[in-house]
């Protein structure tokens, strides 16, 4: 068995006074695609935020290892340098901060963390323009303020743009399919598909099987009340679609 990219062991976490994740364990190998499905409030997004290091969340117990390093002791920016990338469900708008300034700082600080030389202005622009074109965004996209006044599709594409530039090894997609029409969903999914590689793993958080149909996860976890109810292959998605969430919960609870 190859080295694990991410290993979560009995993770218990939540907000100040409320435990939301009640003992989560899962391991992701390089190149694997994992999906987490579950109802609203089951703790899916909390898991994503705790992994990314969002302030305001507290870890009560358990551990998370990424590339053999203790992820939970790192600052959010260190986690990004280490190769973790969270694509936000609702990316925040930052009026006044220019896209290209933002991307240049992000790319160069991550490069610095990884021991690479910073890109000079010319090479950076060349790289970023290439990616902007690849995503079918207009060239003045870089002159706009970060996410300010972006359409739903543009916001998600902006997340993918950052993903392309920062070249992470673990991508967490937090309901990337929400707020997109079918065409936009297809477009975004195609870009994600192109990012699949033997070195890059995905953790996809979603309500809907549609996104998973395209991305074909290796493992599907069903989350309920801060715990993983069951895990399996594609058959879990089928099961959810056919029998609904409540039935799965009943059958798991009634199992001997």
């Amino acid at each position: 068995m190859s080295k694990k990219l991410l290993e979560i062991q009995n993770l218990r976490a939540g907000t100040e006074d409320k435990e939301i994740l009640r003992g989560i364990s899962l391991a992701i190998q390089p190149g694997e695609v994992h999906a987490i499905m579950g109802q609203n409030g089951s703790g899916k997004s909390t898991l994503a935020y705790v992994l990314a290091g969002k302030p305001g969340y507290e870890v009560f117990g358990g551990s998370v290892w990424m590339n053999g390093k203790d992820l939970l002791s790192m600052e959010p920016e260190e986690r990004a340098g280490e190769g973790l990338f969270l694509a936000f469900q609702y990316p925040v708008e930052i009026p006044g901060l220019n896209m290209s300034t933002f991307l240049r700082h992000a790319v160069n600080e991550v490069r610095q963390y990884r021991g690479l030389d910073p890109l000079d202005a010319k090479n950076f622009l060349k790289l970023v323009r290439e990616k902007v074109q690849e995503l079918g965004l207009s060239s003045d996209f870089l002159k706009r303020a970060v996410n300010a006044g972006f359409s739903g599709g543009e916001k998600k594409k902006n997340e993918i743009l950052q993903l392309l530039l920062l070249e992470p090894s673990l991508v967490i997609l937090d309901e990337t399919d929400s707020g997109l029409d079918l065409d936009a969903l297809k477009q975004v999914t195609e870009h994600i598909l192109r990012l699949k590689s033997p070195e890059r793993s995905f953790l996809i958080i979603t309500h809907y099987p549609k996104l998973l149909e395209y991305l074909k996860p290796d493992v599907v976890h069903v989350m309920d009340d801060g715990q993983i109810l069951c895990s399996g292959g594609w058959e879990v998605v089928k099961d959810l679609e056919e029998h609904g969430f409540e039935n799965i919960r009943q059958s798991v609870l009634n199992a001997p």
Partner: protein
Amino acid sequence: MTPADIMAPSRAELAVLAGQPSPRELYKYSPLSKWIPESLAGVLHKEISTSFATKWPDEIRSFFRIFDHVHDPLLRIFLRTLEPQLWQEVQGHSLFSKTALSLSPGGIVSGFQIRPEISDSFFNLKLDFQEIEAPAQPSITGFLVWVGEGISADVCLEIISDPRKAHSVLILVVAEKDSRTDLNLIISGSGQVRCNTFVSLAGPAARAHLRSVILSSPSSHHDLHNWVQHRAPETESNQTVRLLGAKDSTSVFSGQIVVENSAPRTTAYQSAKGLLLDEGAFVYMRPFLEIYHDDVKCSHGCTTGFLDPEQLFYLRSRGISESRARQELTEAFVREVFSSVGSVIQREYLNSALKHILNTCM
């Protein structure tokens, strides 16, 4: 240390000499007469009223009548006694600083007149009180911006306060029919400055956009009072204000919009935001509207807070260090003000001025 430095009383001593209470208590929303000590009022009156009887051009007369109902007594003294010859013509496209002030009598009152004659004129002015080698006493600097019919003009004024003395700046704008005035203001420094901006939209369809950024340094006190009066139909005003609160600083914005009965179909907006950067930072804001006609569109928004943790986390999750993220977000907060400046050259000028101040002082 030069002899001048040794002689210069501290700000606290100055305040006591002038009979002022502590800065934090006094300057909140205080009328101008409290800001400028009585002694200065006396000097003003004595020095200038002797020549008051001399002839006044009609246009200056009518200009001052516009402000007749401004009840601040000291402002009235200032407006009424200021000898027209004191108004120095400011050339467009120029940048001036220290020398201009020494032209005023006693080094305490100076007036500058800005009268663009062609459209798309711009005036980039800098008032650096730190560079003025004057005795440590308060001063008033007045700017009369007169934008004639159909003219469009951009005025950028950078004010840098000085800890040795308290200063007051008056900006009077008269906008005639179909004119456009953009007034961009950056206040910074480590001392006390009070800036009063009076804008009179006197002709139909006159438009004015006031953009102001107040940056503070530890223990600075910066005060901005906007007063925008709509006198004619279909006039339009817009105020965008951002205040940055450094450690133990006080920043004040009070913004009044007056829509007279003679100004139907008026549009007036005001947006003011304060950002508290450190402990002991105070930001006071007071927006108010006075509307005497039904057919108008007016709105105002006013918030004060800390850096948005969501924005901070977003940048950090992309590998940007916390200190850099804070710096970028702070800059973004103030930079947003100038994003609506029409001329690219002006926008660049303002943004580079901002960047310079943020890099050196904050």
